[in-house]
Protein backbone atom coordinates (compact mmCIF):
# COMPACT_ATOMS: atom_id res chain seq x y z
CA UNK A 1 0.00 0.00 0.00
CA UNK A 2 1.25 3.47 -0.83
CA UNK A 3 2.20 5.89 1.93
CA UNK A 4 -0.73 8.29 2.16
CA UNK A 5 -1.01 11.82 3.46
CA UNK A 6 -3.25 14.84 3.88
CA UNK A 7 -2.57 18.18 2.28
CA UNK A 8 -4.68 20.82 4.04
CA UNK A 9 -4.71 24.20 2.37
CA UNK A 10 -5.53 27.31 4.42
CA UNK A 11 -6.04 29.35 1.26
CA UNK A 12 -8.88 27.10 0.09
CA UNK A 13 -10.66 26.46 3.40
CA UNK A 14 -13.98 28.26 3.86
CA UNK A 15 -14.41 27.35 7.53
CA UNK A 16 -17.56 25.26 6.97
CA UNK A 17 -16.47 22.60 9.49
CA UNK A 18 -17.83 19.81 7.29
CA UNK A 19 -14.60 17.92 8.05
CA UNK A 20 -15.21 18.16 11.80
CA UNK A 21 -18.75 16.87 11.35
CA UNK A 22 -17.82 14.11 8.91
CA UNK A 23 -15.04 12.98 11.26
CA UNK A 24 -17.37 12.87 14.25
CA UNK A 25 -20.05 11.00 12.32
CA UNK A 26 -17.81 8.39 10.74
CA UNK A 27 -15.75 7.71 13.85
CA UNK A 28 -18.62 7.99 16.36
CA UNK A 29 -16.78 10.57 18.46
CA UNK A 30 -18.72 12.07 21.36
CA UNK A 31 -19.78 15.72 21.30
CA UNK A 32 -17.56 18.37 22.87
CA UNK A 33 -20.41 20.23 24.55
CA UNK A 34 -21.49 23.80 23.92
CA UNK A 35 -19.01 26.50 24.80
CA UNK A 36 -18.69 30.03 23.51
CA UNK A 37 -15.06 31.10 23.27
CA UNK A 38 -15.38 34.50 21.52
CA UNK A 39 -12.40 33.42 19.39
CA UNK A 40 -13.84 34.26 15.99
CA UNK A 41 -16.04 31.37 14.81
CA UNK A 42 -13.99 28.78 16.66
CA UNK A 43 -15.81 27.24 19.60
CA UNK A 44 -13.76 24.04 19.59
CA UNK A 45 -10.37 25.58 20.42
CA UNK A 46 -8.10 22.52 20.25
CA UNK A 47 -7.68 19.07 18.89
CA UNK A 48 -8.38 16.50 21.57
CA UNK A 49 -9.68 13.08 22.49
CA UNK A 50 -13.07 13.91 20.97
CA UNK A 51 -11.90 16.35 18.27
CA UNK A 52 -9.80 14.87 15.51
CA UNK A 53 -10.35 17.65 12.98
CA UNK A 54 -10.40 21.21 14.25
CA UNK A 55 -11.06 24.25 12.07
CA UNK A 56 -8.99 27.26 13.12
CA UNK A 57 -10.29 30.80 12.52
CA UNK A 58 -7.49 33.34 12.41
CA UNK A 59 -8.39 37.02 12.43
CA UNK A 60 -5.19 38.82 11.61
CA UNK A 61 -4.35 42.51 11.18
CA UNK A 62 -2.58 41.77 7.87
CA UNK A 63 -3.76 42.17 4.28
CA UNK A 64 -4.68 38.92 2.51
CA UNK A 65 -2.22 38.82 -0.34
CA UNK A 66 -3.12 41.44 -2.95
CA UNK A 67 -6.68 41.89 -1.69
CA UNK A 68 -8.02 45.38 -0.98
CA UNK A 69 -10.57 45.38 1.81
CA UNK A 70 -11.67 49.01 1.80
CA UNK A 71 -11.33 49.27 5.55
CA UNK A 72 -8.80 51.45 7.29
CA UNK A 73 -7.00 48.63 9.08
CA UNK A 74 -5.63 45.74 7.10
CA UNK A 75 -7.49 42.55 7.89
CA UNK A 76 -7.61 38.93 6.86
CA UNK A 77 -9.65 35.96 8.00
CA UNK A 78 -7.92 32.64 7.53
CA UNK A 79 -9.42 29.19 8.08
CA UNK A 80 -7.49 25.97 8.41
CA UNK A 81 -8.52 22.47 9.38
CA UNK A 82 -5.95 21.12 11.84
CA UNK A 83 -5.41 17.39 12.32
CA UNK A 84 -2.97 14.86 13.80
CA UNK A 85 0.30 15.26 11.94
CA UNK A 86 1.09 11.52 11.75
CA UNK A 87 4.80 12.29 12.21
CA UNK A 88 7.49 10.25 10.50
CA UNK A 89 9.14 10.04 13.96
CA UNK A 90 6.17 10.19 16.27
CA UNK A 91 6.65 11.18 19.92
CA UNK A 92 3.49 9.35 20.99
CA UNK A 93 4.52 6.13 19.26
CA UNK A 94 8.00 6.21 20.80
CA UNK A 95 6.61 6.90 24.28
CA UNK A 96 3.82 4.29 24.29
CA UNK A 97 4.82 1.56 26.78
CA UNK A 98 2.14 -0.92 25.71
CA UNK A 99 2.76 -1.01 21.98
CA UNK A 100 -0.79 0.26 21.51
CA UNK A 101 0.41 3.02 19.18
CA UNK A 102 1.63 1.56 15.91
CA UNK A 103 2.74 2.61 12.44
CA UNK A 104 0.29 1.33 9.85
CA UNK A 105 1.04 0.15 6.33
CA UNK A 106 -0.19 3.50 4.98
CA UNK A 107 2.40 5.34 7.10
CA UNK A 108 -0.05 6.73 9.64
CA UNK A 109 0.19 6.53 13.44
CA UNK A 110 -2.68 4.54 14.94
CA UNK A 111 -3.77 4.04 18.57
CA UNK A 112 -5.18 0.53 19.04
CA UNK A 113 -8.06 1.20 21.42
CA UNK A 114 -8.11 -2.32 22.87
CA UNK A 115 -4.40 -2.24 23.76
CA UNK A 116 -4.10 1.32 25.13
CA UNK A 117 -4.15 1.31 28.94
CA UNK A 118 -4.44 5.06 29.47
CA UNK A 119 -1.01 5.67 31.01
CA UNK A 120 -1.01 9.18 29.53
CA UNK A 121 2.63 9.19 28.45
CA UNK A 122 1.76 9.81 24.79
CA UNK A 123 -0.24 12.89 25.85
CA UNK A 124 2.85 14.67 27.17
CA UNK A 125 5.12 13.27 24.45
CA UNK A 126 3.27 14.67 21.43
CA UNK A 127 5.16 17.78 20.25
CA UNK A 128 1.96 19.05 18.58
CA UNK A 129 -0.40 18.51 21.53
CA UNK A 130 -2.74 16.29 19.52
CA UNK A 131 -3.42 13.05 21.39
CA UNK A 132 -5.39 13.24 24.64
CA UNK A 133 -6.95 10.94 27.19
CA UNK A 134 -10.72 10.52 27.29
CA UNK A 135 -11.34 10.51 31.02
CA UNK A 136 -14.66 8.67 30.75
CA UNK A 137 -13.17 5.76 28.80
CA UNK A 138 -9.76 6.12 30.43
CA UNK A 139 -7.66 5.65 27.29
CA UNK A 140 -6.02 7.85 24.64
CA UNK A 141 -7.64 8.92 21.39
CA UNK A 142 -6.63 10.83 18.27
CA UNK A 143 -7.15 10.88 14.51
CA UNK A 144 -6.98 7.34 13.07
CA UNK A 145 -6.37 8.68 9.56
CA UNK A 146 -9.60 6.73 8.88
CA UNK A 147 -7.56 3.55 8.93
CA UNK A 148 -10.76 1.51 8.53
CA UNK A 149 -11.76 3.45 5.41
CA UNK A 150 -8.27 3.39 3.94
CA UNK A 151 -8.10 -0.38 4.29
CA UNK A 152 -11.20 -0.56 2.10
CA UNK A 153 -9.73 1.83 -0.43
CA UNK A 154 -11.79 4.83 0.67
CA UNK A 155 -10.41 8.26 1.42
CA UNK A 156 -10.68 9.63 5.00
CA UNK A 157 -14.09 11.06 5.87
CA UNK A 158 -12.82 14.65 6.30
CA UNK A 159 -11.20 14.75 2.85
CA UNK A 160 -14.31 13.20 1.33
CA UNK A 161 -16.56 15.80 2.93
CA UNK A 162 -14.41 18.85 2.14
CA UNK A 163 -16.35 20.90 -0.44
CA UNK A 164 -13.40 23.02 -1.62
CA UNK A 165 -10.62 20.41 -1.81
CA UNK A 166 -8.90 22.28 0.97
CA UNK A 167 -8.26 18.82 2.41
CA UNK A 168 -6.60 16.69 -0.22
CA UNK A 169 -5.74 13.06 0.31
CA UNK A 170 -3.22 11.10 -1.67
CA UNK A 171 0.26 9.66 -1.97
CA UNK A 172 2.71 11.62 0.16
CA UNK A 173 5.26 12.48 -2.54
CA UNK A 174 2.53 13.59 -4.95
CA UNK A 175 1.08 15.84 -2.27
CA UNK A 176 4.48 17.28 -1.36
CA UNK A 177 4.87 18.21 -5.03
CA UNK A 178 1.35 19.64 -5.19
CA UNK A 179 2.03 21.69 -2.08
CA UNK A 180 5.17 23.11 -3.69
CA UNK A 181 3.28 24.01 -6.86
CA UNK A 182 0.45 25.56 -4.87
CA UNK A 183 2.80 27.73 -2.82
CA UNK A 184 4.54 28.96 -5.96
CA UNK A 185 1.18 29.76 -7.55
CA UNK A 186 0.10 31.66 -4.45
CA UNK A 187 3.33 33.64 -4.36
CA UNK A 188 2.93 34.59 -8.01
CA UNK A 189 -0.54 35.85 -7.20
CA UNK A 190 0.81 38.08 -4.46
CA UNK A 191 0.39 35.88 -1.38
CA UNK A 192 4.02 36.45 -0.49
CA UNK A 193 3.85 34.77 2.93
CA UNK A 194 2.45 31.45 1.65
CA UNK A 195 4.45 28.48 2.87
CA UNK A 196 4.37 24.75 3.44
CA UNK A 197 4.25 23.48 7.02
CA UNK A 198 5.93 20.08 7.00
CA UNK A 199 8.83 20.07 9.51
CA UNK A 200 11.21 17.78 7.64
CA UNK A 201 14.43 19.31 8.90
CA UNK A 202 13.78 18.60 12.61
CA UNK A 203 13.85 15.26 14.42
CA UNK A 204 10.16 14.80 13.62
CA UNK A 205 11.36 14.10 10.08
CA UNK A 206 8.32 15.37 8.22
CA UNK A 207 4.67 14.61 8.72
CA UNK A 208 1.89 12.78 6.91
CA UNK A 209 -0.32 15.84 7.28
CA UNK A 210 1.07 18.67 5.18
CA UNK A 211 -0.31 22.18 5.37
CA UNK A 212 -0.23 25.20 3.11
CA UNK A 213 -0.47 28.26 5.38
CA UNK A 214 -0.11 32.01 5.18
CA UNK A 215 2.28 33.62 7.62
CA UNK A 216 4.12 32.26 10.64
CA UNK A 217 3.31 28.75 11.90
CA UNK A 218 3.04 30.01 15.51
CA UNK A 219 -0.20 31.81 14.68
CA UNK A 220 -1.74 28.41 13.89
CA UNK A 221 -0.31 26.95 17.12
CA UNK A 222 2.10 24.95 14.97
CA UNK A 223 5.46 24.61 16.77
CA UNK A 224 8.06 26.31 14.54
CA UNK A 225 10.55 23.49 14.96
CA UNK A 226 8.96 20.50 16.70
CA UNK A 227 11.23 17.81 18.11
CA UNK A 228 10.43 14.22 19.02
CA UNK A 229 11.17 13.99 22.79
CA UNK A 230 13.30 10.85 22.43
CA UNK A 231 16.14 13.05 21.12
CA UNK A 232 16.69 13.83 24.81
CA UNK A 233 17.08 10.16 25.71
CA UNK A 234 20.86 10.26 25.93
CA UNK A 235 21.17 13.48 27.94
CA UNK A 236 18.37 12.53 30.37
CA UNK A 237 19.68 9.04 31.03
CA UNK A 238 23.29 10.21 31.41
CA UNK A 239 22.18 12.80 33.96
CA UNK A 240 20.35 10.02 35.78
CA UNK A 241 23.46 7.80 35.63
CA UNK A 242 25.65 10.53 37.14
CA UNK A 243 23.12 11.15 39.91
CA UNK A 244 22.84 7.41 40.58
CA UNK A 245 26.62 7.09 40.89
CA UNK A 246 26.59 10.03 43.30
CA UNK A 247 23.93 8.23 45.38
CA UNK A 248 26.10 5.11 45.52
CA UNK A 249 29.07 7.24 46.59
CA UNK A 250 27.13 9.01 49.37
CA UNK A 251 25.61 5.77 50.69
CA UNK A 252 28.99 4.06 50.53
CA UNK A 253 30.68 6.92 52.40
CA UNK A 254 27.90 7.09 54.99
CA UNK A 255 28.11 3.46 55.99
CA UNK A 256 31.87 3.08 55.60
CA UNK A 257 32.53 5.99 57.99
Amino acid at each position, binding site marked *: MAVSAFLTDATLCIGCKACEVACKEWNHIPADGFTFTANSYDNTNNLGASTWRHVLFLEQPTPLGPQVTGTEDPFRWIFLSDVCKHCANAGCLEACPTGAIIRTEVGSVYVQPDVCNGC*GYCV*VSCPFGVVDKNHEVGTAFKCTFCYDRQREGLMPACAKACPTQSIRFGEINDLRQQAQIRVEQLKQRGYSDARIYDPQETSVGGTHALFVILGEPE*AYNFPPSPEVPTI*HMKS*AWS*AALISALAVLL*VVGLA*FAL
Partner: protein
Amino acid sequence: MAKETQITEDRLDALREEAARTGKLQHEGIVPVASPFPKAISATSYNGNPVLKAPTWTWQVPLYFFVGGVAGISAVIALVTHVSGNVGLMRVALWIALAGALISPPLLIADLGRPARFLNMLRVFKLRSAMSIGAWTLVGFSSAAALAVACHELSLGGYGNGALILLEWLAEIFAAFSGLILASYTSVLLGMTAIPVWSENRRLVPAVFLTGALGSAAAMLELLGFLIPATQFIGIVTSTIETIIAIIIEWRDRYVDRPLREGAAGWLTRAGSAVAGPTSLLLRIFWSHSPGARYIAALCFVAGALIARYAWIAAGRVSSRDPQALFQIQRPERRAATVT
Protein backbone atom coordinates in the same frame (compact mmCIF):
# COMPACT_ATOMS: atom_id res chain seq x y z
CA MET B 1 -17.23 58.19 17.54
CA ALA B 2 -18.83 56.54 20.55
CA LYS B 3 -22.31 57.84 19.76
CA GLU B 4 -22.18 56.22 16.31
CA THR B 5 -21.36 52.78 17.66
CA GLN B 6 -24.70 52.28 19.43
CA ILE B 7 -26.13 48.95 18.35
CA THR B 8 -29.57 49.87 17.01
CA GLU B 9 -31.60 48.64 14.06
CA ASP B 10 -31.58 52.14 12.59
CA ARG B 11 -27.83 52.24 12.71
CA LEU B 12 -27.58 48.85 11.01
CA ASP B 13 -29.99 49.94 8.28
CA ALA B 14 -27.95 53.07 7.72
CA LEU B 15 -24.78 51.00 7.38
CA ARG B 16 -26.43 48.61 4.93
CA GLU B 17 -27.71 51.45 2.79
CA GLU B 18 -24.35 53.12 2.72
CA ALA B 19 -22.62 49.85 1.83
CA ALA B 20 -25.10 49.16 -0.99
CA ARG B 21 -24.72 52.68 -2.39
CA THR B 22 -20.97 53.20 -2.26
CA GLY B 23 -19.61 49.64 -2.15
CA LYS B 24 -17.70 50.34 1.04
CA LEU B 25 -18.14 51.78 4.50
CA GLN B 26 -16.72 55.12 5.51
CA HIS B 27 -17.83 54.95 9.11
CA GLU B 28 -16.81 52.82 12.03
CA GLY B 29 -18.76 49.63 12.43
CA ILE B 30 -20.22 48.35 15.65
CA VAL B 31 -17.83 47.79 18.52
CA PRO B 32 -18.83 44.48 20.08
CA VAL B 33 -18.77 43.80 23.77
CA ALA B 34 -15.41 42.44 25.01
CA SER B 35 -13.56 43.67 21.91
CA PRO B 36 -10.79 43.88 20.85
CA PHE B 37 -10.61 40.12 20.63
CA PRO B 38 -7.28 38.29 20.89
CA LYS B 39 -5.56 38.03 17.52
CA ALA B 40 -3.96 34.92 16.13
CA ILE B 41 -0.50 36.27 15.40
CA SER B 42 2.88 34.63 15.66
CA ALA B 43 3.78 36.59 18.78
CA THR B 44 0.77 35.36 20.75
CA SER B 45 0.07 31.89 19.25
CA TYR B 46 -3.42 30.92 18.15
CA ASN B 47 -5.49 33.21 20.41
CA GLY B 48 -3.19 32.31 23.27
CA ASN B 49 -4.49 28.73 23.32
CA PRO B 50 -2.15 26.04 24.63
CA VAL B 51 -0.15 24.20 21.97
CA LEU B 52 0.51 21.13 24.11
CA LYS B 53 -1.73 18.88 26.15
CA ALA B 54 -1.52 18.96 29.95
CA PRO B 55 -0.42 15.84 31.84
CA THR B 56 -3.42 13.63 32.65
CA TRP B 57 -1.94 11.92 35.70
CA THR B 58 -3.97 11.69 38.91
CA TRP B 59 -2.67 12.50 42.40
CA GLN B 60 -1.45 8.93 42.85
CA VAL B 61 1.32 9.34 40.29
CA PRO B 62 3.49 11.91 42.13
CA LEU B 63 2.97 9.84 45.27
CA TYR B 64 4.22 6.81 43.35
CA PHE B 65 7.26 8.82 42.20
CA PHE B 66 8.04 9.36 45.88
CA VAL B 67 7.27 5.84 47.13
CA GLY B 68 9.17 4.17 44.27
CA GLY B 69 12.16 6.43 44.90
CA VAL B 70 12.29 5.65 48.63
CA ALA B 71 11.86 1.92 48.01
CA GLY B 72 14.57 1.84 45.35
CA ILE B 73 17.18 3.68 47.41
CA SER B 74 16.29 1.61 50.50
CA ALA B 75 17.34 -1.45 48.54
CA VAL B 76 20.66 0.26 47.79
CA ILE B 77 21.11 1.05 51.50
CA ALA B 78 20.22 -2.56 52.33
CA LEU B 79 22.92 -3.89 50.04
CA VAL B 80 25.59 -1.47 51.28
CA THR B 81 24.77 -2.13 54.96
CA HIS B 82 24.80 -5.87 54.31
CA VAL B 83 28.30 -5.50 52.86
CA SER B 84 29.42 -3.32 55.78
CA GLY B 85 27.91 -5.78 58.28
CA ASN B 86 25.10 -3.72 59.82
CA VAL B 87 22.51 -6.49 59.56
CA GLY B 88 19.95 -4.91 61.88
CA LEU B 89 19.71 -1.80 59.71
CA MET B 90 19.80 -3.89 56.57
CA ARG B 91 16.71 -5.85 57.60
CA VAL B 92 14.69 -2.67 58.17
CA ALA B 93 15.87 -1.18 54.87
CA LEU B 94 14.84 -4.36 53.04
CA TRP B 95 11.39 -4.21 54.60
CA ILE B 96 11.03 -0.54 53.57
CA ALA B 97 12.00 -1.52 50.01
CA LEU B 98 9.41 -4.30 50.01
CA ALA B 99 6.72 -2.08 51.48
CA GLY B 100 7.35 0.51 48.76
CA ALA B 101 7.30 -2.20 46.12
CA LEU B 102 3.92 -3.39 47.38
CA ILE B 103 2.37 0.09 47.56
CA SER B 104 3.57 1.18 44.10
CA PRO B 105 1.47 -1.02 41.76
CA PRO B 106 -1.85 -0.08 43.43
CA LEU B 107 -0.95 3.60 43.03
CA LEU B 108 -0.24 3.14 39.31
CA ILE B 109 -3.37 1.03 38.88
CA ALA B 110 -5.42 3.77 40.52
CA ASP B 111 -4.19 6.14 37.80
CA LEU B 112 -4.91 3.64 35.00
CA GLY B 113 -8.40 2.86 36.27
CA ARG B 114 -8.43 -0.92 36.53
CA PRO B 115 -5.88 -3.59 37.45
CA ALA B 116 -5.83 -5.48 34.14
CA ARG B 117 -4.55 -2.35 32.40
CA PHE B 118 -1.24 -2.62 34.23
CA LEU B 119 -0.64 -5.94 32.46
CA ASN B 120 -0.72 -4.14 29.09
CA MET B 121 2.57 -2.54 30.14
CA LEU B 122 4.12 -6.01 30.04
CA ARG B 123 3.15 -6.81 26.44
CA VAL B 124 6.33 -5.28 25.06
CA PHE B 125 9.68 -3.96 26.25
CA LYS B 126 10.74 -0.68 24.66
CA LEU B 127 14.12 0.82 25.48
CA ARG B 128 13.04 4.11 23.89
CA SER B 129 10.08 4.47 26.25
CA ALA B 130 11.04 5.44 29.80
CA MET B 131 7.55 4.34 30.90
CA SER B 132 8.16 0.83 29.53
CA ILE B 133 11.56 0.61 31.25
CA GLY B 134 9.90 1.78 34.47
CA ALA B 135 7.08 -0.76 34.35
CA TRP B 136 9.50 -3.65 33.84
CA THR B 137 11.87 -2.27 36.49
CA LEU B 138 9.04 -2.09 39.01
CA VAL B 139 8.13 -5.73 38.34
CA GLY B 140 11.77 -6.86 38.59
CA PHE B 141 12.40 -4.77 41.68
CA SER B 142 9.29 -6.01 43.50
CA SER B 143 10.19 -9.62 42.81
CA ALA B 144 13.78 -9.16 43.93
CA ALA B 145 12.80 -7.24 47.08
CA ALA B 146 10.23 -9.90 48.01
CA LEU B 147 12.76 -12.67 47.40
CA ALA B 148 15.46 -10.91 49.44
CA VAL B 149 13.10 -10.37 52.39
CA ALA B 150 11.86 -13.96 52.21
CA CYS B 151 15.41 -15.37 52.15
CA HIS B 152 16.51 -13.11 54.98
CA GLU B 153 13.55 -13.95 57.21
CA LEU B 154 13.96 -17.68 56.51
CA SER B 155 17.64 -17.42 57.48
CA LEU B 156 16.69 -15.62 60.71
CA GLY B 157 14.08 -18.30 61.37
CA GLY B 158 16.73 -20.99 61.29
CA TYR B 159 16.22 -22.32 57.78
CA GLY B 160 19.44 -20.80 56.48
CA ASN B 161 21.78 -22.73 54.23
CA GLY B 162 24.40 -21.89 51.62
CA ALA B 163 21.95 -21.79 48.72
CA LEU B 164 19.55 -19.52 50.59
CA ILE B 165 22.32 -17.09 51.53
CA LEU B 166 23.58 -17.00 47.94
CA LEU B 167 20.03 -16.42 46.70
CA GLU B 168 19.60 -13.58 49.19
CA TRP B 169 22.78 -11.90 48.00
CA LEU B 170 21.74 -12.21 44.35
CA ALA B 171 18.26 -10.84 45.13
CA GLU B 172 19.75 -7.92 47.08
CA ILE B 173 22.20 -7.04 44.33
CA PHE B 174 19.41 -7.17 41.73
CA ALA B 175 17.08 -5.15 43.99
CA ALA B 176 19.76 -2.49 44.56
CA PHE B 177 20.54 -2.20 40.85
CA SER B 178 16.89 -2.10 39.77
CA GLY B 179 16.19 0.18 42.75
CA LEU B 180 18.54 2.80 41.33
CA ILE B 181 16.69 2.61 38.00
CA LEU B 182 13.33 2.71 39.80
CA ALA B 183 14.30 5.87 41.69
CA SER B 184 15.69 7.62 38.61
CA TYR B 185 13.57 6.56 35.63
CA THR B 186 10.67 8.78 36.71
CA SER B 187 12.90 11.84 36.27
CA VAL B 188 14.08 10.63 32.84
CA LEU B 189 10.42 10.04 31.98
CA LEU B 190 9.66 13.70 32.64
CA GLY B 191 12.77 14.87 30.79
CA MET B 192 11.79 12.94 27.67
CA THR B 193 8.50 14.75 27.04
CA ALA B 194 7.41 17.73 24.99
CA ILE B 195 6.57 19.79 28.12
CA PRO B 196 9.06 22.70 28.13
CA VAL B 197 9.76 22.97 31.87
CA TRP B 198 10.46 19.23 32.07
CA SER B 199 12.47 18.73 28.90
CA GLU B 200 14.56 21.86 29.48
CA ASN B 201 15.37 20.57 32.99
CA ARG B 202 16.14 17.03 31.87
CA ARG B 203 19.64 17.25 33.36
CA LEU B 204 18.39 18.68 36.66
CA VAL B 205 15.31 16.56 37.43
CA PRO B 206 17.31 13.31 37.95
CA ALA B 207 19.37 15.10 40.60
CA VAL B 208 16.19 16.42 42.24
CA PHE B 209 14.44 13.06 42.29
CA LEU B 210 17.44 10.98 43.39
CA THR B 211 18.40 13.46 46.11
CA GLY B 212 14.83 13.40 47.38
CA ALA B 213 14.73 9.61 47.28
CA LEU B 214 18.09 9.19 49.06
CA GLY B 215 17.32 11.73 51.76
CA SER B 216 13.83 10.33 52.30
CA ALA B 217 15.08 6.73 52.51
CA ALA B 218 17.59 7.77 55.19
CA ALA B 219 14.93 9.88 56.93
CA MET B 220 12.59 6.86 57.04
CA LEU B 221 15.33 4.90 58.82
CA GLU B 222 15.77 7.78 61.29
CA LEU B 223 12.03 7.89 61.94
CA LEU B 224 12.25 4.16 62.73
CA GLY B 225 14.88 4.91 65.35
CA PHE B 226 18.20 4.70 63.51
CA LEU B 227 19.66 7.98 64.76
CA ILE B 228 23.16 6.98 63.67
CA PRO B 229 25.97 9.05 62.11
CA ALA B 230 25.36 7.48 58.69
CA THR B 231 21.79 8.76 58.43
CA GLN B 232 22.86 12.14 59.76
CA PHE B 233 25.57 12.29 57.08
CA ILE B 234 23.10 11.42 54.31
CA GLY B 235 20.64 13.94 55.76
CA ILE B 236 23.18 16.76 55.70
CA VAL B 237 24.41 15.92 52.17
CA THR B 238 20.91 15.63 50.67
CA SER B 239 19.47 18.75 52.28
CA THR B 240 22.56 20.68 51.15
CA ILE B 241 21.99 19.50 47.56
CA GLU B 242 18.27 20.39 47.86
CA THR B 243 19.30 23.91 48.87
CA ILE B 244 21.77 24.19 45.99
CA ILE B 245 19.16 22.99 43.45
CA ALA B 246 16.68 25.56 44.72
CA ILE B 247 19.30 28.29 44.37
CA ILE B 248 20.12 27.13 40.81
CA ILE B 249 16.44 27.33 39.77
CA GLU B 250 16.06 30.82 41.25
CA TRP B 251 19.40 32.10 40.03
CA ARG B 252 19.13 30.91 36.41
CA ASP B 253 15.98 33.01 36.05
CA ARG B 254 14.95 31.36 32.75
CA TYR B 255 11.57 32.01 31.15
CA VAL B 256 10.94 28.28 30.84
CA ASP B 257 11.39 27.86 34.63
CA ARG B 258 8.65 30.35 35.44
CA PRO B 259 6.22 27.64 36.61
CA LEU B 260 8.88 26.69 39.19
CA ARG B 261 9.06 30.25 40.51
CA GLU B 262 5.63 31.80 39.96
CA GLY B 263 2.05 31.04 40.83
CA ALA B 264 0.78 28.12 42.88
CA ALA B 265 3.19 25.62 41.30
CA GLY B 266 6.09 27.98 41.95
CA TRP B 267 5.24 28.43 45.60
CA LEU B 268 4.75 24.69 45.97
CA THR B 269 8.24 24.18 44.52
CA ARG B 270 9.67 26.77 46.87
CA ALA B 271 7.86 25.33 49.88
CA GLY B 272 9.20 21.86 49.14
CA SER B 273 12.74 23.16 48.71
CA ALA B 274 12.58 25.32 51.84
CA VAL B 275 11.42 22.46 54.03
CA ALA B 276 13.71 19.75 52.63
CA GLY B 277 16.63 22.11 52.08
CA PRO B 278 17.54 24.86 54.57
CA THR B 279 15.07 23.88 57.34
CA SER B 280 16.20 20.29 57.51
CA LEU B 281 19.86 21.29 57.11
CA LEU B 282 19.84 23.89 59.90
CA LEU B 283 18.07 21.52 62.29
CA ARG B 284 20.73 18.88 61.63
CA ILE B 285 23.66 21.27 62.00
CA PHE B 286 22.59 23.25 65.08
CA TRP B 287 20.72 20.59 67.05
CA SER B 288 22.70 17.54 65.95
CA HIS B 289 22.61 16.01 69.44
CA SER B 290 18.91 16.39 69.98
CA PRO B 291 16.96 13.29 68.89
CA GLY B 292 13.80 15.41 68.68
CA ALA B 293 15.42 17.82 66.24
CA ARG B 294 16.60 14.92 64.11
CA TYR B 295 13.12 13.43 63.98
CA ILE B 296 11.76 16.82 62.91
CA ALA B 297 14.55 17.22 60.34
CA ALA B 298 13.73 13.78 58.94
CA LEU B 299 10.02 14.59 58.80
CA CYS B 300 10.79 17.91 57.10
CA PHE B 301 12.87 16.22 54.44
CA VAL B 302 10.25 13.56 53.70
CA ALA B 303 7.54 16.21 53.48
CA GLY B 304 9.70 18.45 51.27
CA ALA B 305 10.61 15.63 48.89
CA LEU B 306 6.96 14.61 48.61
CA ILE B 307 5.86 18.19 47.96
CA ALA B 308 8.58 18.52 45.32
CA ARG B 309 7.10 15.59 43.32
CA TYR B 310 3.71 17.28 43.27
CA ALA B 311 5.31 20.63 42.46
CA TRP B 312 7.15 19.28 39.41
CA ILE B 313 3.96 17.72 38.02
CA ALA B 314 2.04 20.95 38.73
CA ALA B 315 4.78 22.98 37.01
CA GLY B 316 4.49 20.70 33.98
CA ARG B 317 0.78 21.35 33.86
CA VAL B 318 1.36 25.12 33.93
CA SER B 319 4.16 24.88 31.37
CA SER B 320 2.00 22.88 28.94
CA ARG B 321 -0.46 25.77 28.85
CA ASP B 322 2.13 28.39 27.89
CA PRO B 323 2.77 28.45 24.12
CA GLN B 324 5.54 31.04 24.55
CA ALA B 325 7.68 28.66 26.61
CA LEU B 326 7.58 26.21 23.69
CA PHE B 327 8.09 28.76 20.92
CA GLN B 328 11.06 30.35 22.67
CA ILE B 329 12.90 27.04 22.94
CA GLN B 330 12.31 26.39 19.26
CA ARG B 331 13.15 29.89 18.06
CA PRO B 332 15.84 31.10 20.46
CA GLU B 333 16.73 34.02 18.15
CA ARG B 334 13.32 35.54 18.92
CA ARG B 335 13.63 35.19 22.66
CA ALA B 336 14.54 38.83 23.19
CA ALA B 337 11.64 40.03 21.08
CA THR B 338 8.87 38.02 22.72
CA VAL B 339 9.78 37.99 26.40
CA THR B 340 7.38 40.21 28.30
